[in-house]
């Protein structure tokens, strides 16, 4: 057997942005004809590494070698010329023009200055046949499913100057099982043609289905590169989360309350609640004086579940009962009126209203409940704002500061304040401590536990197992858009990780 040849070698790659080190001395190699999975949780540095390789960003430090030669990738255009092609999660093609055009446009064959359609169609057909998929290249791209569109995107990527490296960034997020298998067949075919493929995904099952080697990043650093066949699933998850198996053997107890679940008042009951494409039907119970932790990797359906309970999306299966009443109308306002609150995962897009002041952000939901006409008086607003600024320790020069000028942690606190001001019975927090400094993290965790003591029901969704375990009375584990386990009382990290990884 031949020695494996490295087609890409990235050494000592370091990249920082203002305030954050995205990559630190990362080493990554890709062999010819291998499928190499790149995994890591949010903020691990996967996308930055790829951006460096494709010339979107320039590394502060480090070298990139392509087939043994040191190269400077100046721009995405340049990376394509070097033979590195990328296909993104959102299909970056145009659905109104034909498949052939999507593949060939930019290098279309011409005759006397105008497009030579028969020739272009023929070339496109040949390119597509390379992937063995059956498509009429004269049809508009929009006539085909997203999976096929993705194949076309791959075809285009490959057609450009004999690609040597193909980067697939979360290609299976919108595909079903059948379509994913189709994609994998294509990938195997390309592998046989000695193309190196970097496969970025958060679906661990798929990693084991298709990858030869796995590289794990965590917090901008390289954890390691492993042969897929010699790394167990549990070990993989542990590495992604920053644990070693020996550490896990030390048991961390979930703190136990005096009351048991049976004695607590049930506030919310979800039976078979689900939405096609987002969440398989789940059963869930929320109790007063209780913190339910939700653990699961990215893409496991945690945010979708929170969204269904809070009413952002209406489920297409199952039922939701709040304090004995069945919910028929799903909307944030309805939930607000029932006393359910949600601190969303994406602070920037779904949480803060950046150009409004701290005060206005804090009273926003409360005002929504009061309605259009009963406007909170300036005194009342200031009172509420000041109260929560002090209570949560929000660092801001004044309540009139624009929220977008606050740090991430303080923005999170503002959103928390917004919902606390509505005095909810159920408080769902989706990744409340992400991007928050250590001091604020602990404050928020303590607050959640205090709120539960006072009688609220809290749902604490987080990728950081130690805080989930520390804060929760019960823990639910989600994997691949399903709820796979729920634990109460004593549970340790190892058990949780096994549930998340898929090994009971």
């Amino acid at each position, binding site marked *: 057997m031949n020695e494996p040849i490295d087609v890409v070698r990235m050494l000592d790659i370091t990249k920082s942005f203002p305030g954050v080190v995205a990559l630190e001395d990362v080493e990554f190699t890709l062999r010819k004809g291998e499928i190499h999975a790149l995994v890591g949780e949010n903020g691990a540095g996967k996308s930055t590494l790829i951006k460096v390789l494709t010339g979107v960003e320039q590394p502060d430090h480090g070298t990139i070698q392509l087939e043994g030669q040191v190269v400077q990738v100046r721009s995405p255009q340049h990376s394509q010329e070097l033979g590195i092609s990328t296909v993104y999660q959102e299909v970056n093609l145009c659905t109104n023009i034909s498949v052939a055009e999507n593949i060939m446009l930019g290098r279309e064959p011409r005759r006397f200055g105008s497009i030579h359609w028969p020739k272009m169609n023929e070339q496109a057909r040949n390119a597509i046949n390379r992937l063995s998929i059956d498509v009429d290249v004269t049809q508009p791209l929009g006539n085909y499913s997203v999976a096929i569109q993705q194949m076309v995107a791959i075809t285009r990527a490959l057609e450009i100057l004999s690609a040597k490296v193909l980067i697939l960034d979360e290609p299976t997020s919108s595909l079903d099982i059948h379509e994913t298998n189709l994609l994998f067949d294509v990938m195997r075919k390309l592998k046989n043609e000695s193309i190196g493929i970097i496969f970025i995904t958060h679906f661990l099952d798929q990693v084991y289905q298709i990858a030869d080697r796995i590289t794990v990043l965590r917090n901008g650093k390289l954890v390691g590169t492993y042969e897929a066949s010699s790394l167990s699933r549990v070990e993989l998850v542990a590495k992604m989360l920053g644990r070693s198996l020996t550490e896990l053997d030390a048991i961390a107890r979930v703190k136990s309350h005096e009351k048991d679940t049976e004695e607590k008042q049930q506030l919310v009951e979800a039976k078979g609640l689900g939405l096609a494409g987002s969440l398989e039907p789940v059963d869930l119970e929320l109790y007063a004086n209780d913190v339910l932790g939700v653990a699961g990797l990215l893409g496991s359906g945690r945010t979708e579940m929170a969204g269904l309970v809070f009413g*952002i999306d209406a489920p297409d299966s199952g039922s939701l009962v709040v304090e004995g009443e069945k919910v028929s109308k799903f909307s944030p306002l309805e939930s607000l009126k029932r006393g359910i609150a949600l601190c969303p995962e994406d602070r920037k897009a779904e949480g803060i209203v950046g150009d409004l002041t701290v005060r206005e952000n804090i009273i*926003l939901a409360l005002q929504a409940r009061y309605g259009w006409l009963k406007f909170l008086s300036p005194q009342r607003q200031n009172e509420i704002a000041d109260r929560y600024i002090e209570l949560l320790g929000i660092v801001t020069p004044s309540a009139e500061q624009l929220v977008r000028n606050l740090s991430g942690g303080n923005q999170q606190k503002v959103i928390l304040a917004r919902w606390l001001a509505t005095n909810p019975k159920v408080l769902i927090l989706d990744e409340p401590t992400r991007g928050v400094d250590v001091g604020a993290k602990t404050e928020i965790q303590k607050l959640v536990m205090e709120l539960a003591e006072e009688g609220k029901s809290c749902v604490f969704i987080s990728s950081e197992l130690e805080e989930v375990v520390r804060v929760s009375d019960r823990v639910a584990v989600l994997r691949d858009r399903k709820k796979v386990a729920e634990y109460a009382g004593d549970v340790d990290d190892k058990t949780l990780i096994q549930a998340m990884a898929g090994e009971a």
Partner: protein
Amino acid sequence: MKQTSFFKKLRRSQIFWPLVAWVLILIFDAIVEPGFFRLGIIEDPAYGKHLYGNLVDVFNNGAPLMLVAIGMTLVIATGGVDLSVGAVIAISAAMGAVLINPALGNELITNEILTRNATNTPLPLIVLAGLAAGTVCGLWNGLLVSRVGIQPMVATLILMVAGRGIAQLITNGQIMTIYYTPYFWFGNGYILGLPVSIYIVAGVLLLAWLLVRKTAIGLFIESVGINAKSTYYSGINEKNVKLLAYAFCGFCGAIAGLILSSYVHSADGNNNGLNYELDAILAVVMGGTLMTGGRFSLFASVIGALVIWTFTVTVYSLGVPANALLAAKAVLVLLVILLYSDYSRRLMNRLFERRGSQHDTAN
């Protein structure tokens, strides 16, 4: 914080730059043509003693634009735009004319009708009908945008095209002259020496201010314009917020139509309110409200409208031929676009501190 002087507050508020622009034009007038500011008192047989002069004209003739600017501000603040305001003006004017005039259809206008000076419908009803028509137009636009989900520019374009046809339909294709003297009062009358239209503008401004600053509506509008998703997640029905904004804009357009038709004593489906939409958008942009939506100031938009109108009157009174006005206006638009573009905004933000939320002085 409490020590900020009045001037500092003013400089930070949204009305500062449009005010500066207006003052600059006035200064220009003072230098080049001192007669511009001449005010006199005149005795009018119909309306009694009242003020008279260029400045009065500016406010009187600029009233319709100021009204439309008020309505347009709310729409733009939600992140949209309303191109149909001109058509709404025409429709409202047409309704007024038709309800007054007994000569419907192809009935000949006899001398008797011409001199009757009477109306078919009582005046309050006419006013109400016009306002209702405008509000319905606004609701139509609002529904298309918020419920059907059509882009604001496209949705209001429909009424912009069809609206004039509707106005023509109402007046049966004719330019209808209005022969009812009490109707003229809106555009030509005077109270305490000042034109009625100023009072109407002040009244609408007050109503709008109460609506947006004394209820939660203003906050909701700004919130929707800045980040509609976060607003929705906070439990606010952003669809209805948008609907309200468009309906109010239609309402303002209707009042503007009333004043305009009263002023020229006629309703002309083709020409009433022509090009008002651009002037209104320009006034709002000049008032510092971003076209992408968010923070707004009604008062600043009104001043923006004043700037445009004073500019127009200045150009006329300078003796510049009327034919050059259009070209000069184009240059004004260009300047505003350049000054308020992303680039200049960043520059200005760096020169001055970032704006706080001083609503009290703004409006």
